[in-house]
């Protein structure tokens, strides 16, 4: 399969002229960092560009940071897997950004406090311990969130340029990209970031619109919609259709993520805090609402076009991404969009698009590296030293942290094994931070009774969002309510395993307590009826061998005493092995549950443990 993928990527139109275009762009970016280096002498200039960014530059830098290559890749992946229904994510993001721009919800009040980072606000509102804890949670969630950026970006470069994905090309590209970003972020700080963001905006906006146009032209406007209708049905258009992979729960989750992306996510908020005035800030968000929508909609479109191209015009790719044989493993669909672009774009233009995407990659990375390193310096290290660190020391620490974080994302990109869509991975990891942050910021800015105890509790509870990650659920699956404990395998037959039969329990007595409390708490967790035909269909079976090895597989069909999988990914189960079952919780469900939980403990903690000092101050 790898050689087929190599063959597929090698059919790109990417040529020498395209390499020249990319090289010129990269040189330009690094030169800018050296040019503005002399202005990055103090922490405010280094982190917030001296709080002197005008509206249009603010729009460019907000778009540049939030429209990264990772955004293009995960949105294209969503378009590829879900069709036009994925557009709802971008539309909701745009509408929410517009509402925030018009109302100034959270961001304006935060800007009025003249803080550099969100945890710095925590200290002003809740005290130093909250700031340090908030900084730790922010760094933890943020670094996990950023962990796959480098790998996904490198996959794009490999896919579109025609390098060999099976060799070491991916690792080499990861290292080169990382080195480039580190150089100009370490040197120039936020000033070089906003200027390169501007250049990226110009190149990317032209590039992405042209790419979208050519993508539609390559598959045909009518064919685009017809093919999605044939292969995906109503679910390809309607995000709340019964058979859709989204549903109302997911749409609600996207609405909250829209607020997060604009008003809570530190990289976006850092842009808001760098604006010259609150009026500029509101204009920045109002205009950027278009970018917030388009940054997902056009990549979604590229993904949909790639899907249609694969299904109707490239039989070799269809075998790769949607093999007819269930035993053949499909290639990672993240490669679909870059391979598609590599085949349809002409030489020269493909270089421009690649430069634009690398620009997107770099502008996102610089913003994120700067943001997380600043958070660790300003909100964890500096408070621990009781603010005795001088400016040169802080900048030096920030620069060292930028390099260390870069090395971490290289490591994480190589070794993380989760199978979620990238967008869902990012939403869940980000939720570790933003579920708590929402309570703290919203409560702190708009509710006088918010207390530091409630804040600390909310931050700690936010960590439960980590249970939305596939590998974490695998690890703790026996504790997920509704999961079925291990039972011995008594016989095997090709893809079917047999075990002691499940028996339907006797009817339980009616109980008001059970109906009101237990049923309510258990609502988010599915309860299987494995004694029924296909009662475990869609559940995950975890087979543990006698020597301790483990594999998980989705149950294709089941009966009271047997379960069948489409294939065994690891090993053939044997008599004496054990099997347990659980229903994976979607990231959206875990995220929404975490939001509710954090708000609950925040309000409860604030009401039960109000801040004594705040009361004293109030009575003065």
């Amino acid at each position, binding site marked *: 399969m790898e050689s087929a993928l190599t063959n597929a990527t090698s059919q790109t139109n990417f040529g020498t002229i395209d390499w020249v275009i990319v090289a010129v762009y990269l040189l330009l970016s690094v030169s800018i960092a050296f040019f*503005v280096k002399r*202005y990055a002498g*103090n922490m*405010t*200039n280094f982190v917030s*560009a*001296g*709080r*002197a*960014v*005008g*509206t*249009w*530059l603010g*729009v*460019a830098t907000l778009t540049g940071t939030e429209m990264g290559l990772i955004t293009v890749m995960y949105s294209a992946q969503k378009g590829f897997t879900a069709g*036009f229904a994925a*557009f709802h994510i*971008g539309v909701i993001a745009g509408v929410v950004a517009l509402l925030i721009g*018009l109302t100034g919800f959270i961001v304006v009040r935060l800007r*009025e*406090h*003249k803080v550099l980072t969100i945890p*710095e*606000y925590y200290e*002003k*509102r*809740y005290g130093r311990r909250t700031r340090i804890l908030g900084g730790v949670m922010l760094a933890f969630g943020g670094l996990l969130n950023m962990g796959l950026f480098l790998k996904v970006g490198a996959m794009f470069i490999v896919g579109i340029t025609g390098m060999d994905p099976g060799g070491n090309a991916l690792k080499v590209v990861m290292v080169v990209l990382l080195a480039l970003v580190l150089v100009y972020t370490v040197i120039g700080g936020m000033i070089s970031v*906003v*200027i390169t963001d*501007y250049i990226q*905006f*110009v190149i990317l*906006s*032209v590039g992405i619109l042209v790419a*979208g146009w050519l993508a539609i032209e390559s598959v045909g*406007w009518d064919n685009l*919609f017809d093919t999605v*209708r044939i292969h995906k049905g109503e679910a390809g*258009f*309607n995000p709340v259709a019964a058979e859709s992979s989204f549903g109302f729960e997911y749409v609600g989750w996207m609405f909250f993520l829209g607020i997060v992306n604009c008003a809570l996510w530190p990289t976006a908020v850092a842009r808001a805090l760098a604006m010259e005035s*609150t009026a500029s800030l509101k204009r920045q968000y109002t*205009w950027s*609402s*278009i*970018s917030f*929508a*388009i940054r997902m*909609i*056009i990549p979604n479109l590229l993904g949909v076009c790639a899907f249609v191209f694969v299904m109707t015009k490239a039989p070799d790719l269809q075998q790769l991404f949607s093999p007819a044989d269930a035993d053949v493993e499909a290639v990672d669909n993240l490669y679909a969009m870059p391979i598609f672009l590599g085949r349809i774009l002409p030489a020269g233009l493909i270089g421009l698009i690649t430069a634009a995407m690398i620009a997107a990659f770099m502008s996102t990375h610089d913003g994120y590296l700067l943001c997380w390193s600043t958070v660790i310096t300003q909100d964890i290290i500096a408070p621990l030293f009781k603010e*005795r660190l001088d*400016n040169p020391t802080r900048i030096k620490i920030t620069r060292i942290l930028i390099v260390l974080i870069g090395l971490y994302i290289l490591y994480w990109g190589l070794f993380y094994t989760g199978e979620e869509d990238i967008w869902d991975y990012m939403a869940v990891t980000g939720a570790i931070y933003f579920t708590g942050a929402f309570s703290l910021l919203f409560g*702190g800015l*708009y*509710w*006088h009774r918010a207390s530091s105890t409630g804040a600390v509790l909310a931050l700690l509870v936010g960590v439960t969002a980590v249970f939305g990650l596939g590998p974490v659920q695998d690890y703790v699956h026996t504790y997920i309510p509704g999961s079925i404990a291990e039972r011995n395998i008594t016989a095997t037959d090709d893809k079917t395993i047999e075990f002691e039969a499940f028996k339907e329990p006797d009817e339980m007595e009616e109980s008001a307590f059970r109906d009101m409390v237990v049923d309510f708490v258990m609502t988010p967790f599915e309860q299987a009826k494995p004694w029924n035909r296909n009662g475990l269909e869609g559940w995950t079976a975890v087979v543990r061998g006698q020597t301790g090895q483990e594999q998980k597989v989705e149950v294709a069909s089941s009966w009271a005493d047997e379960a069948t999988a489409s294939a065994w990914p690891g090993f053939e189960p044997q008599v004496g092995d054990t099997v347990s079952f659980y229903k994976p919780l979607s990231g959206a469900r875990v995220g929404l549950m975490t939001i509710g939980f954090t708000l609950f403990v925040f309000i409860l903690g604030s009401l039960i443990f109000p801040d004594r*000092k*705040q009361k004293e*101050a*109030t009575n003065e």
Partner: protein
Amino acid sequence: MSDELNELSSVSPNTQSMEPSVESPVDPPKPPPVLPPRPSKKKGSWLPTVIVILLLMAGITALGVIMIFAIMNDGWRAVLGAVEKDGWEWVWKVTLIGTCGLFALLSVLVTVGGAQDIRKLLRRLREREASGESDSGD
């Protein structure tokens, strides 16, 4: 909550400078927590907001409808027929074309305005560098 506290809140951000003096390692007196300001009674102009909303909505709708005319070349009946037959499909067509059109417009504005902002930013930083100013306010 007293008004005095809110007045205190409005000035306190500057008491927590991010550039502490290196010469005075003694902890500064801890400032009181910053409480949310009371809602301002000063009314801002609502007209620009309404205009922006109307412009955005009109832009998306107009661009979408115009492009659908251009693509389908079959007038209102075809558009209404398409909506009736394929509601979601129609919604995404309008969204796609409308947002792309608006983004093209935004790109032009940002390209021109952003270049001017960069010049202003560098000039301001140069001035600050010359005057030895280390932080800025509004």
